[in-house]
């Protein structure tokens, strides 16, 4: 359903940090390129939903990206190592949401 217009990319607050743009992530999903699961981009996603709200085809990109994350997490492979986080500087909610989002 994605027409590769690129609105998602320039709506995304994290796109400058990503190795693959949000439109690029959707492209990979369209053509079945599973190497997208190895990208940094899907983990830099802030789940802000701006892409979803602006997509002219009505695609829920945030949901698709979450699904890509889950494909790794559900194999019991965490994206962060809890032991290695420096907890003193973090507000507790950041720790909680990181655990929810980045672990299986």
């Amino acid at each position, binding site marked *: 359903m994605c027409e590769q*217009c*690129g609105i998602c990319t*320039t709506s995304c607050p994290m796109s400058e940090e990503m190795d693959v*743009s949000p*439109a690029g992530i959707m492209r990979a999903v369209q053509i079945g390129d599973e190497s997208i699961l190895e990208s940094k981009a899907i983990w830099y996603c802030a789940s802000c939903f701006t892409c979803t709200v*602006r997509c002219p085809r009505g695609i829920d990109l945030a949901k698709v990206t979450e699904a890509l994350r889950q494909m790794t997490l559900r194999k019991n492979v965490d994206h962060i190592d809890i032991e290695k986080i420096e907890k003193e500087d973090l507000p507790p909610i950041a720790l909680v949401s990181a655990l929810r989002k980045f672990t299986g």
Partner: protein
Amino acid sequence: MAKVGVYVCHCGGNISDTVDVEEVAQFASKLPDVTVVRSISHMCSESGQKAILDDVEEYKLDRVVVSACSPQFQGATFRKTLIKAGLDPNMVEMANIREQSAWPHYEEPEKATEKAKILTAMAVEKIRLSKPVEIETLKIGKNVLVIGAGIAGIQASLDLANAGFNVYLVEEKPTIGGRMAQLSRTFPTEDCASCILAPKMADVADHPNINLMTYSEILEVNGSVGNFKVRIKKKPRYVDEKKCTACGDCEKVCPVSVPDEFNLGMTERKAIYLPSSTAVPHAHVIDDNACLGIVPLVCGLCAEACEADAINYDDAPQYININVDTIIVATGFDIFDAKLKPQYGYGKYKNVITALEMERMIVEMAEGHAIRPVGKDIAFVQCVGSRDAQVGNLYCSRICCMYATKLASLLKRADPSRDVYVFYTDLRAYGKGFEEYYRTAQDLGVKFIRGRPGELLEDPDNNKVIVRVEDTLTRNIIDKEFDLVVLSVGLVPSEGTKKIAELLKIPRSSDGFIKEAHPKFRPVDTPVEGIFVAGTAQGPKDIPDTVAQASGAAARAITLMNKGEYEMSPIKAIIDEEKCDGCGLCVEHCPVDAIELKKVAEINPAVCKGCGSCISSCPRDAIDLKIFSNEEIMAEIRNAVKDKKDGEKRILVFADDMCTYTLADSVGTAKMKYDASTYIIRVPSSSRITPKMMLKAFEMGADGIFLGECEKAVSPYPNTLEAIENNVNKAREALVKAGIEPERVEYSPFVTVMFKKFIGLVNGLSEKADKFGNIPEEKRKRLIVEEVVR
């Protein structure tokens, strides 16, 4: 006593290779009222038709059955044969033993032959009850109402007027010309829009056959084709068009300035104003909302200044009633409101404008007025308000790629030092000369970047606009600053279009534009007889397509009116006045408001579409359908389900003529197989099959009933799918009460390409009937007692 001639066709082997035509002929000779039977190699040939003509003379036949191909294939041929024979063309019935027996059942010759016999019997029993058709004609005159005087309305009016028809052209603005008059140059030729439009506008004003009413509103429309009664309000101009010389002295003294809507609010006009420099009629008008006051008079300076004495403060609205025979809707478009895309900053950022504003700026610049600075770095953003699920406009507005290419080219050519970008998703250059024009734009140095901007930001220091866009071809993210950003806004149905659609009761498509009677074959007819549509009211399109459609709509109107007499389709619903008790349920039910309650219900044949869905709404069974009457259909049903042998099943399929019947024929033509126990009965719409008829069919021996109907988008009848669903649910309730499986009745919408769906559903129903077995007699008897009554 009827005298029926039955003709069984070999079709050169197409039928006779599978069906034993001699056996069918033998069988037919024993049917009631059958006087003569022949089996002939090619019925449609000269010799086949001659056989009919000779037999009609010799045996005094008064009706004919041709067991051959589909009535959709050669039905017209045999109707002509009957007219030649001096008989009414409705007195022939075709039994479809080719597309609906020999071909789909080519692997089961015995079953195909049995089915051919039954189909022939059904046709004979139907034709015994058929009546001559009495084609009703309406007297029709030469008066046309054209609503909207943009290029579509102008073109249609000129074509009609030149053909000798009498046109009332009604325009709500004080000038004609519509959107085209606001444009600078037109793609791909770069003609000056007003220059090519002006002669046509002048022709309209001068034409003896065109009654032009500007600054006028349609208040009410009643009636039907051949007799539309229209009430029009002519708003007061306060200026006599014949006396006004457009000198402008009044404007100089008028103290009130308001935004000029012709220039989209970018410039100002006075309360007394000339609608545009090319306005037709070329006269001023007082905007009585902006004026300080007319009743009572507050200012009066304009009348003092007017040397032609053209101003009349006593002007008042005029109400005019006219009678017309046909109507053409040409109410045009509005542009998408770019404020609905807040991420593009329109209305907030100084330097974000719409393409229509750019058009006006270019026109004014060419006349030496710079309305606002243009700058050197200019960006066009495509698909604003189009192809966008977030604003509910899924469609493409068709012209924006080309108008942006045009505007970009004009800007670049006027000042080659400008840097002009077009940010697009697809570059749609589909028309004549379009692709070449796109290439020329690239040669000029216009930069085309494939990417749809996510957002525009304003630099607070200099008000320049930053465009954030991904170049999807390189995957680079671009953050570029521009002096001016132009939003290529899409087209939406105008407020006038929405209002007129409601007044005329013509439907709109899901995109909001006026709906056509058939998307392919009747693109300028609306589903309401006698009302046509042209131009952007029907959907986004450019000027050549608009003009073509306008001429098309004019031609369609002329076709309808030209003979002075208009032949209505004979398939109409009729009320039995003796049975009708005036309850009015049918009036409420009819989706096209064809029924009126006087002493009893009365159906207006000019409005009735002949779907027959009203029949099931009548608690007194007082409604029937001509040509496909209750007793004719029941005769077909009875003969399809009687004389069942043990273990045999009979599945009835009611097929609407336009879609399902055509589909069944195509399935047979493609030699695709389905269960041979299915008997297809042709109807204009399956909504004419009432719950009682379905229950009677089961009582008489049917094992399953399937109803097929056009999908909503291609259906000539509104709301029939809902009516069918209602009828099927009622029938199912009654079946359940009688202890019979409700799954024996099914319905589905179809379009003519759904081969597999048709076969799947029909075979599926047949399998269910096998599983359930024949309905035992005691249960069938219950159907009469426990019948559903409203």
